[in-house]
């Protein structure tokens, strides 16, 4: 994710050590915990998440914002709750 003013992450899901489809299941279950318009992050080493988090957004009508990394270097995928 680029831009100097990164939006605050309202909920960070620690999915380290989980394999597909568990990170996306976690996202599907818990994104409703943040208000519409807020950002949820999924932190996982699962290589499938790079494709499946954007695919989940497309299928579920949410907005995929991009990828950065958590402090420990693990990939972090950012999603805005649209509905």
């Amino acid at each position, binding site marked *: 994710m680029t831009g100097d003013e990164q939006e605050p992450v309202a909920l960070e899901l620690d999915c380290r050590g989980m*394999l*597909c489809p568990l990170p996306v299941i976690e996202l599907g279950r818990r994104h409703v915990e943040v208000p519409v318009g807020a950002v949820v992050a999924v932190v996982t080493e699962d290589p*499938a998440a790079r494709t499946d988090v954007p695919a989940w957004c497309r299928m579920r009508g949410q907005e995929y914002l991009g990828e950065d990394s958590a402090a420990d270097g693990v990939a972090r995928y950012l999603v805005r709750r649209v509905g």
Partner: protein
Amino acid sequence: MLEAALTRGYADPRALHGPGRDARLLLDNAREVVAECLGLTRDEVWFTSPSDAVQRGVLGLVAGNPRAGDDAVLSAVEHAAVRHALGWHARRRDVVPVEVGVDAAGRVDAAAFRDAAGAPGVAVAALQLANHEVGTVQPVAGLDLPAGVPLFLDASASLGLLDLPGSGWAAAAGHATSWSGPPGVGLLLVRRGARWANPFPGDPEPQDAGGGLPDVAGALAAAAALQATAAERAEVDARRRRLVDRIRAVAATLPDTEVVGDPVDRLPHLVTFSCLYLSGETLVRELDRLGFGVASGSACTASTLEPSHVLAAMGALTHGNVRVSLGRDTTEEQVERFVAALPDLVGRLRTEVGL
């Protein structure tokens, strides 16, 4: 025919003695049959293993084009055999193969592919006739590559099912399983006039089995199967397309499920879909319990735990993936049983997940 091959074709067809000449006759007969089915001449057809056909096919064009440079262009959805062959070549020359992306249906953009192939230093471009996982046909016929850049055509998933383009490619590979032939037989096809040179140790010209002992019985069985497939192709093609359409239609009604690959311009027998929140491995196991043998491109079904590079390149959901390949004799009853079982199974597994 196979019996004749086993009793008469056991000898080494490279030998000059009587049994050797007999085996040579049978092998050339098989070559002739294959050439006729594919619209080629017999000196363009070589029998070898499926992986050798890919490796020698694509790398032979690089070796035959020594002044062009070391770069290779391929689509992002090529079979692992092509990716591995070009990756192996590139590592030795300290270059990186250029991958051209695909759209959501898995089809490469012909103009982007042509542009990439036209870059300086490109020795070969590789593209499949149709994708082996999602069935989408690639725009091979309209490629019109720059002069001097040969096309390697990977027809391993499609030979016998789709027509081979009459021109526009220099070498190709086929795998007899795509036309219900024996699994160990591959075809290396090298066009007349193509600049091809053996990339591996041995004679510079193409040879059966890479110069090793040819499998005469396998070649004959493959040729007979190709002939039979060609004879029944129109009928089997129409039936399988109808059955695939049926599975696609039912899969599309499942909640949170996407059917992937081109709905029309595709291989006749393949259908692929992905179910959100479900594990591909669980789907494969549960369907197997119900009597359906299916494949999956999901990471959990791969030894590497990496998802299918085809699905990833398309941006398609990689988990919960199911790939159904219909045999030439798959019946409507079997397909109806499958589509009847699918909604219950997906519903039950989703309930277990709680979503």
